Every structure is written in C-alpha cells, then in structure tokens.
C-alpha cells in the first residue's frame, strides 16, 4: 500500500494548492474550495516562520478508527484509515482522537481525512509531498 509522505516540509510555501486539489479529487462529489480537504496548509504562527502541511501520518494503530462508533473509519492496510462517509454521523470523536490534528470538519459537518490517494502530489509545485510504498 502506498502512503502520502512529506518529502521536504521546509519547502512548503503555504499556497494551499494541495487543499484545493483534495476537495476537487472526489469524482462523485467534486467541490470547489478548501472545505472538503483532508490536508491543511498552515503558517507557523505567522508566515515569517514559514509554512507547513498537516495530514494523516498513516498510524499503524489509528486511534481515530478505534473511537469511531459507526465504523465509518477503519484501519487501512499499510497504515491510516479508509473513510465511508455514508455511515458517518458527524460525532467528531475522531477529530479529538487524532493527536496531530489531521482530521478536519467539512463544510457539511462530516469529516475529511487523507486516504493517501496522492492526487495532491501532482499539484504541489515545490516538491513538499511524495507518495511512497508503506
């Protein structure tokens, strides 16, 4: 299984193109904007200290799946989770369980989490992200 990984976080310029790509990638529910993204580009308490991206670290024992009462999140082979949004009822337990804050609330109340598809890599202009074999 492949996972999305940081190639070089110091190269991040904070452009948010990864977030927009992530919102756009779902062919069944393509969205324009940031609010369906499972990755987030942030400044480090102001851009004078640079920028970084936050996304699922592909834990081998994901706590978010453990606290998910509906089994919308299930451990994924190779690390991280799969997400079945149809059964998610927006309790947000997963958001609290993720230590690195890599699960985000979508604009429809459900959650967005990186499933390591790698679509964003093609739209990162500066080589911050890469997909590798787990």
């Amino acid at each position, binding site marked *: 299984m492949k996972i999305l990984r940081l190639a070089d976080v110091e190269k991040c*310029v904070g452009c948010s*193109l990864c977030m*927009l790509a992530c919102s756009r990638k779902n*062919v069944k*529910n*393509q969205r324009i904007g940031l*609010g369906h993204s499972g990755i*987030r580009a942030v400044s480090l308490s102001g851009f004078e200290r640079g920028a970084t991206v936050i996304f699922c670290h592909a834990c081998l024992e994901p706590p978010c799946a453990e606290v998910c009462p509906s089994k919308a999140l299930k451990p994924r082979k190779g690390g991280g989770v799969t997400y079945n949004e149809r059964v998610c009822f927006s309790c947000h337990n997963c958001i609290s369980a993720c230590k690195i804050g890599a699960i985000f609330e979508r604009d429809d109340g459900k959650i967005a989490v990186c499933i390591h598809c790698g679509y964003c890599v093609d739209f990162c202009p500066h080589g911050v992200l890469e997909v590798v074999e787990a």
Partner: protein
Amino acid sequence: MISRVLTIDLSDYTYEIQEREDLVEKWIGGVGAGIQILKERLNPSADPLSQKNVIVFSTGPFTPAYPYASKTVALFKSPLTGELGETHAGGRTAMAIASAGYMSVAIEGKSEKPVYIVIDGDRVHFRDGRSIVGIRDSLILGRILAEIEGGRGIRSIIRAGYAGEKLVRYACLTTETYRHFGRLGLGAVFGSKNLLAVVVIGNKTYPPADQKLYREIYSEIYRIGVESEAMKKYHLLGTAENVLPLNELGGLPVKNLTERRFDCEDISGEKFADENLGRRIACSHCPTACIHIAALREEYEDERYFFKTVMIGYDYELIYALGSMIGVKNRRDLLKLIHRVESFGLDAISTGVCLAWATEAFKRGFVSREDTIVDLEFGNSASYLKAINWIVEQPNEFYSDLAKGARYAAEKYGGTEFAMTFAGNEMPGYNTGYASYIGLTIGLRHSHLDNGGYSLDQKVSSLSPQETVDRLVKEEMWRQVLSSLVVCFFARNVFRPELVSRAFLPIGFQFTEDELEKIGERIYMEKLKLKKAMGYEPDLSQIPERVFEVETPHGRLEREFFEDALNYYRRTYFLKAD
C-alpha cells in the same frame, strides 16, 4: 456561485447578508460588483475619516475556483487623495472571504470603542479590542490574533497597524504578514472607525457546473502557470529583478529625481537573492510564490554573540521607495527601513516619497531643523529610521503634516514642484517616460498597476499623446475584468480573454470575449463617474513640475505632450462619464 454580500455596521454592531446575483450577472464580481456596492452605500462627498466612509472588500467568481485568483479588491474613499480609494491584496484574504460564503463584505459606521471583527462563516462577532490598542508592531498584533482566534489554515487576519491607529493618511492594512492593501490609506480609514482588524474564517465549498470540464480547464491554467514563460519573472528573482535594468535605462527614480543614475549594485534583485533570500511564500492558490522574504541576521547592539534574525519581505517598489528614491544604497540599511515601515503598517511607496520630498525641502530651506528634528539627507538611513517613527508618532506640526502626504505638506511649506505625487498619490518607481506619468495621472487609482504605463514606455518608442492615452485606457479597461474575476495582475499573461471566457463555463457562467470587453469598459466608466463626483480633475495641476525637468529614457518630457494627452483624455473619456 458565490454572490452573497455581507454588510457590517460598526455603529450599532449589526450585520446583514444579502443575495446579489444581479451584481454577478451584470458586473462579474470583484471591482465591478464592489464599485456598485460602494455607490449604493457611500455619499461621494463624505469625509473619508468620518463614520460615513464605507469600505468594500470584494472577491470574484474565479476566487476559489482557479489558481492565481488570489486577490481581494478593497474600495473606499481615500483619506490621502480625497477621491476614490482602491487597493488590492493577496495573502489568504480572498480565499477566506469566498470560503466564508461571500463575494463582498462592506463595512460602515464607526465603533465607539476599539474593536476587531471576526467573520466566521454566517456569523459575525464584534470583539473588544481595548487591550490590543497601541501595539507598535503589526507582526505582534498578527500573532496575538492568530493565537486567540480559531480557523488555522482556513482564515485570513487583516489588520491595520499603529500607523492606522495614528491616522497616517498612507497607513496600509497588512494580511498574512507580508501582503498589503497598501495604497491610498485604508489603514487610516480602519483607524478612524476604531477598527483594529478583521479576521475571516470559512470552509464553504460548492460543486462545479461541469465536473470534467472544470478539471480540464483547471489543469490547463495550472500548467500554463508552472510550465510556460508567463510567470517566469515572478518565479525567479521577483519584481526586484527590475532594479538593475531600470537603473541602466535611466528609469529608476534617484534622490527625489535629482539624479539620473544610482549605485544600486548592493540593492539589486540579484544581490538580495544571493545574500539574503531566506524563504519564499505564496498567496492562497498561487503556485508561483512570488513573495520574497529576506533574512536579516543582526547582533544585539550591546551584547556580543547574541543574534536575532528578522524575516523581511522585499519587492521592487520597496527597493525604489526606501532605497534609490532616498539615496540608501546599503542593503542592510534598506532592509531595516523596510522592516520599520512594515512594523508600523505604513505604505512603503508613500513613506519613501514623503521622506524624499522632506529631504529636498530641508536641503533647500523650505523647512527647518526645528521641523525635521534631525538632519535629513539622502542616504542617511539612521535619520530616516527616526523620521519614520515621527511620521507615526507626530511629535510636532511638521510630522503631523507629513503624515498627511507629500502633496499636503508641500502645499503648506512650499516645494509642490518637487513633491512627487500624482493626483495626491505618491509616485511608484518608474521614471520611464510619457506613458508612465500620464498613466499615473489618469489611472483610476493613480497607480502603476492601473494601466502599466511603465511597460508601454519600455515597449513602444513613439506614440502620439492620443495613442498613448488610448493604449493606457484600453489596458485599464481590460484590467477591470481581471480585477473583477479577481486574478492577480502578475498572471495577466495567463488569463488572456479567450481563456477567461472559456474558464467561466465549468463554473456555470457564460461571458463571450466581446461581453467581457464591454463589461470592462462599463466598469471603467462607472469608476470614473464616481471619481468625478468626488472631485477628480485630469489636468496639469495633478503633476509636479519636476516631471518636465528630468531626463527619462524618452529624453526630456514636453509639457505640450501632457496638455494634449490630458485634453484628449478629458474629451474622449472624462466628459463622457456622466
């Protein structure tokens, strides 16, 4: 489609949300929609620093949809020129406003006590700002707001600095540390409304009208941006690459235009990149990341082996205004000046031009040492650092006059002939010829970005006054379309009319190239009408005498050429704006 307009009244702490699809259909969005909102709400004769002034922030239909649609247009009445104020900023503001679900946000009235506003999707919060008044460093204010408010990664923090609180007429707004609503004094308008900052948070999305086509056109724009030559200049050295070639050409303004060439090796784009460039940053949705940040490492004044490293944004305009225009040729000195201006939230161009005028006025005896407190002399950055403090603190009458702009100060003390302002706005760094100066005089915001006159000067050698005006106005009309989308002007070579027209389709609009051109013309005339109502007159009195005395790459500029051009402009465009 995002067509909601949020109106916030600071006088009674209320807000209202309206659907304004009518504005999108007729005026696209951005500046086109914004100018209509301003006209509906602002009395043209209002005092710019009274509660009657209205501020409109406006994004457009491309804002969340396409790369390079990273700008927000702000419209207001300018306290610097007394007529139409318009300034554009990047950062994350446009993305945040659109993601909060708004095309435009209008702010009116005046708060009794200092406040800041948090726009969080459909809700607006008015926060007590009394404990964050008087912070002298805009960076610190930004950090405080970043820590106490939510929305990390999906927000924008737009703040006026200390200069805005002190009503300096060319105070700016700062967003995401390094981008600015720079020109024409929007910071002072915030100050006059007791408004410290606006935090915008949002994560709303919407589906494209045609998913497949949307992906295709998105990728096309992205590829042009990252693979073609269209963005090359901004991708490499950035705007600072202009320093050496413009100096070579004789187009770089030096010491208030008293000299023709400058020793600018140390402050060139190449030198900044080689020695100081420490980081690049991007506005939301921009793959180019043109924001160049210099690292300045400095030892403490009184302690050995203690260092601080300050990260300072630089661009061509700052190198001109706080460098060549005031004779500062040392990179470290220049960076310190830029940092000071940035900390206070001053517009760098206006600050530099005001200092340049003050230096010459002091040298020639129009103002005394008592006025200036220090000996202002070209190249003396230590004096300029003090003078910048005093522009903000205004310890005497002279500095409080200088805080009202170079034109105001020159009218009071003398020396209007060398106060380098056009219609009251301090000039940008292009002594390139007729098109630059005529462009600044007739440009709707008296900015080089209105019509790119500096570029026309460098491309074409012999245009008649009429041709010059027509070319400038035509360019400015098309730029109304770009700033209604709203895309960054640096990407103007990406967003050609054909592509713009096509890119509307997958997001559910239809505008032919012809229609777009006509809308551009109409927006231009709407703005001109409003300027006229605010008292703007396109005549020679808007131009300082020095323009007719200096050598430019086009030689010495004839007064008659300007007269002909302005008469033609008046007949052909100005008188038709009714």
